[in-house]
């Protein structure tokens, strides 16, 4: 990559960051979290569907998982019916999951947690996201 290209890229990146900061200030957009703690009975799948509030759209950034036992729970996740994570075994490697770019969730998200063990287990899922005003999202969406 030439020096000129690097400089142009840097400026665009800077502009994007400045614009993002201005939008976040104007619309009071902050990093937020949601939490869901579930008891999953033995050999059972628990399904949860959560409606995104009508006035906002979620830009999901990642998840933190807390499990009482590693490698016995499997996690599947959808945004607006679109598969995001399929049958991820909750072991040490995924307890702190980050998207490489924000994943948009407009209307609802779904969580499936399957316990493959013969005893009950619990999981706490923390979602990291920014709530964007739906009005703003409707203006910029492609």
């Amino acid at each position, binding site marked *: 990559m030439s020096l000129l290209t690097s400089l142009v890229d840097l400026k665009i990146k800077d502009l994007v960051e400045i614009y993002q900061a201005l939008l976040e200030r104007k619309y009071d957009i902050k990093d937020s979290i949601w939490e869901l*703690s579930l008891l999953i009975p033995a050999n059972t799948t628990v*399904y949860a569907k*959560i409606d995104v509030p009508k006035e906002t759209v979620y830009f999901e950034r990642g998840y933190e998982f807390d499990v009482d036992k590693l490698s016995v729970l499997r996690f599947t996740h959808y945004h607006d019916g679109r598969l995001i994570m399929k049958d991820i075994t909750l072991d040490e490697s995924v307890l702190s999951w980050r998207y490489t770019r924000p994943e948009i969730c407009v209307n609802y998200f779904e969580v499936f947690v399957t316990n493959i063990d013969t005893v009950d287990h619990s999981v706490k899922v923390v979602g990291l996201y920014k709530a964007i005003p739906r009005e703003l999202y409707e203006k910029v969406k492609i």
Partner: protein
Amino acid sequence: MSEEIKKYVKHVSFPQEVKIKVKIGDKEYELTYKPS
């Protein structure tokens, strides 16, 4: 939350009001979480 769903949904926390549907086996529950 109803007593039965409390056995499975131990904790919910959102900054905004959200509607949650939970299915465990054949049983289905609905709840509305309101931040305090």
